[in-house]
């Protein structure tokens, strides 16, 4: 029997042993995190209205998704962290089995199988999204049960845990997601205290292996890399997106062209403008100032996330919270980096702003975990 369980069973004793809590914490929500997320989602809908060609319908659909995602977040926040920890291997194994199912009977488009169709309900979803959370949870579950910093054999086991689903996702093929999933897990290992010497040698190894990566890539992936290196080589084909997005961003200037006034987006020169490239719409219409505001909001989320991680009460909570927060940052960085031409084009949406349901649900589920970790702290350390 656990200390908390014991305390909970004392009649009327719960409050006495817990920190004084506000209204939000009573329902296990983090006030500051929630406020920032609301602001981001709100401004996201605002930009989406412009990017989707003044379509209220799209804004409504996105709003409904947000509501659903918030409900998921709220639900997860209610779960105690130790239950999350206990169920981590379950998520992981379940997710991996689903990934296998995707390879066997998944559905998809453009030569990639990424979806699973649930027969009776008729809902489609991407099991790789589950992995975005299940993976760091699993690695954190494993490492937190060992002494830290991790030893060689623990690193080896972690590597196996990471490799299997990542390869399965890469086979779909969905290189972007597989890298993000791998990154989430690697963040856990790094935060767990992997020695700097090893970090250094892994980085060196990674750089050395880059050319080999070229040979395992699909043609369209190579094309993306080539386009990234020189977009002007195929301005009407694969280079079109990046040229148009840079034009949109650059022509926005400091103060932007004004809401609904961006010619690049309103006249439809900018492709994927309400999904992956939505930051270009924002940059065109609200300028550098708008970009800075959004970056500040994201930084606030990350700051709060790292604060939660630092204040988590056990190693598992720390590792999971840290990983989720840093992965969130990776989304922001990769998306903005890709749209502004710093990185090759990979299909990563801008968190909570891009139009699309799946990523919002996963993200808010992750914040639900953060909130759970933060709001279930007790005075007694276990």
């Amino acid at each position: 029997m656990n200390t908390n369980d014991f305390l909970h069973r004392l009649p009327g004793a719960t409050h006495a042993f817990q920190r004084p809590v506000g209204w939000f914490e009573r329902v296990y929500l983090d006030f500051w995190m929630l406020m920032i997320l609301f602001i981001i989602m709100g401004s996201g809908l605002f930009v989406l209205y412009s990017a989707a060609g003044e379509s209220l319908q799209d804004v409504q659909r996105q709003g409904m998704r947000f509501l659903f995602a918030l409900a998921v977040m709220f639900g997860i926040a209610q779960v105690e962290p130790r239950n999350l920890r206990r169920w981590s291997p379950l998520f992981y194994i379940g997710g991996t089995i689903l990934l296998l199912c995707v390879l066997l009977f998944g559905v998809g488009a453009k030569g990639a199988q990424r979806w699973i169709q649930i027969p009776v309900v008729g809902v489609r979803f991407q099991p790789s999204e589950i992995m975005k959370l299940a993976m760091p949870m699993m690695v954190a579950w494993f490492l937190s049960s060992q002494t830290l910093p991790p030893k060689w054999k623990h690193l080896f086991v972690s590597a196996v845990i990471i490799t299997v689903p990542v390869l399965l996702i890469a086979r779909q093929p969905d290189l972007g997601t597989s890298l993000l999933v791998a990154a989430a897990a690697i963040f856990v290992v790094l935060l767990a205290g992997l020695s700097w010497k090893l970090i250094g040698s892994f980085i060196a190894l990674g750089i050395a292996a880059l050319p080999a990566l070229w040979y395992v890539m699909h043609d369209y992936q190579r094309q993306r890399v080539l386009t990234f290196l020189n977009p002007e080589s195929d301005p009407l084909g694969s280079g079109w997106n990046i040229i148009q997005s840079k034009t949109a961003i650059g022509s926005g200037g400091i103060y932007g062209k004004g809401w609904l006034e961006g010619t690049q987006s309103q006249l439809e020169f900018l492709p994927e403008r309400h999904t992956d490239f939505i930051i270009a719409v924002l940059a065109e219409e609200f300028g550098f100032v708008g970009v800075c505001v959004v970056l500040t909001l994201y930084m606030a989320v990350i700051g709060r996330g790292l604060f939660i991680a630092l204040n988590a009460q056990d190693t598992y909570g720390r590792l999971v919270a840290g990983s989720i927060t840093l992965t969130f940052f990776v989304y922001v960085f990769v998306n903005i980096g890709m749209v502004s031409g710093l990185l090759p084009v990979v299909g990563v949406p801008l968190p909570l702003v891009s139009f699309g349901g799946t990523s919002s649900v996963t993200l808010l589920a992750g914040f639900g975990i953060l909130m759970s970790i933060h709001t279930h702290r007790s005075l007694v350390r276990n």
Partner: protein
Amino acid sequence: MSEKRTFKNLDLEFRLFKERMFVAFAIVIVLIFVLISRMVYLQVYQHDIYTTKSDKNRMHVRAIPPTRGLILDRKGRMLAENLPSYNLMFVREQAKDIQGVLDVLAEILELDKKQKTDMAEQAYSQRRPFHSALLLSQLNEKQIAKISVNRYRLSGVEIEAQLIRHYPYGPMTAHVLGYVSRISEKDLTNVDRSQYAGTYYIGKSGIERQYEETLHGRVGVQTVETNARGRILSVLDETLPQPGESLTLHLDADLQYAAIRALSGFRGAIVAIEPSTGGILAMVSTPSFDPNLFVSGIDSKTYRQLITSRDLPMFNRSIRGNYPPASTIKAFMALAGLEAGVINRNTSIEDPGWFQLPNDKRFYRNWKRGGHGTVNLNRAIVVSNDTYFYHLAFNLGIDRIHPFMERFGFGVNTSLDLPQASAGLMPSREWKKGARKSPWFPGETLSVGIGQGYWQATPLQIATSMALLANRGKWVQPRIVKQVGDEDIPLKQDGTPDDIVLSDPTHWDQVIQAMVDVVHSRHGTARKMSRGVDYIIAGKTGTAQVKSIKQGEVYDENKIAERYRDHALFAGFAPRDNPKIALAVVVENSGGGSSTAAPIARMVFDAYLKKTDEKSSSEKAVKGSQ
């Protein structure tokens, strides 16, 4: 750090974690700074560059092609017009299923395999997104109807209207007007490229080419705002195009039709000129071709047939065909003799049927074996006696013949607006030294005296010389175009040759009377053509040797291959007083001028001088062909 430790060191773990967090946060800050720098670079530092790019994206300068000028005949009948044509355009970004749309098109338009692959190639060709590709041109009404009915199955397909050139008279006017065809990269190097931004066709030959700049007009410009699909949202600025000016020709479509009909079945040419204006009333070269084929894009098989045909349908004989003018120049030889004082109106010779140079055994034969007996100047022209002109040429010498004939336009292109016309060849001592690297032989002067030998002239030159004779030496350059827009082209120009002033003007009357006698007297070589005529024709027949006949050999039409038979010529004008039409008829490999060329000339004269009240024949011809 002990390997044997079994208890978790929570403090150490937390310290480690804090350290890692700190590093991670530092990296996050650095990367955010990278993003911000990137935005500063794009939005502040390169802002101007991208503003220009963005404007370029949305603002397009569109060329509005001018409407090509029309070409009309002297009575205002349409010779070249612009008809709407419908093209099948396809925007593949607007089609959900590209192959599906192509399959539907192939099915409803019943395309063959090659058309299908051509169409697919166009549909998949590399293009700016949302810009349309041309799948098929010149749709007919049935095709348009079928596409319209199936529109719901054809997303991304549009029908676009465009004006294209049409020549209602087809082959009849092909050699005069020439034709327009798709602009090639090479064509663009010769014109102001910007003027052709929206134009698909350019004049490739004939009048269409000669007056390209006038007919084309000036391009208009429109600055428009478009979306990425190329749909125009608003017009920001506009300069309207200036349509090409219409041309009115001297050509008479009725006469052209009559001339073509008269020459049908023969290879040859007819040029008819109005002496008072130099205007070309008819210009025919047979066989001809359909210029409309070139507008729509001729298929390679038909084109190969046209350019490899032995009958040379693409060759404009009327201005580029070089023929020996033969006896048609005897009037001018007579004038040269009279002017030089070598002969007078009474000079006569005894003709044994041949002429011999001093110290030369070679016989220069008259066309009539046994000769014409006593021949004076008038008779020499009327019966076309060769011996008389051998004498005359021998006494004149090439050095006097050459400059005199040049004044009548032989050996020079005197046309006002036909730069592609051949200059022919008026031989001289200097020419032979230069071109043939050999001296002039006296025998060659004799050949020149009867319009043979090195002398070559185009039908246009022969007709021009006749117009000059009709004008009694007053020069008006031959020309096709009468008016550009409303502006008349002036009769006399800087380059017009000097009028020919004879020392004794009655010399004109002398030779013209002889040419009237050719047609109207009992012994004239063209007497048959005067049957039933109610106006007076002055004319001269000619028979040009294609293959030289060896000494002592007799010309026998039946023995000689068709291609080596003589060319038949007739040159003349009518009516004698106040001449209205001067013409030259050349009929290739058809024998004698009096038997073939003269009757054709009569038909042309009649068509022009006998005004019929019935509805113009050429218009009926056009209606019949449509």
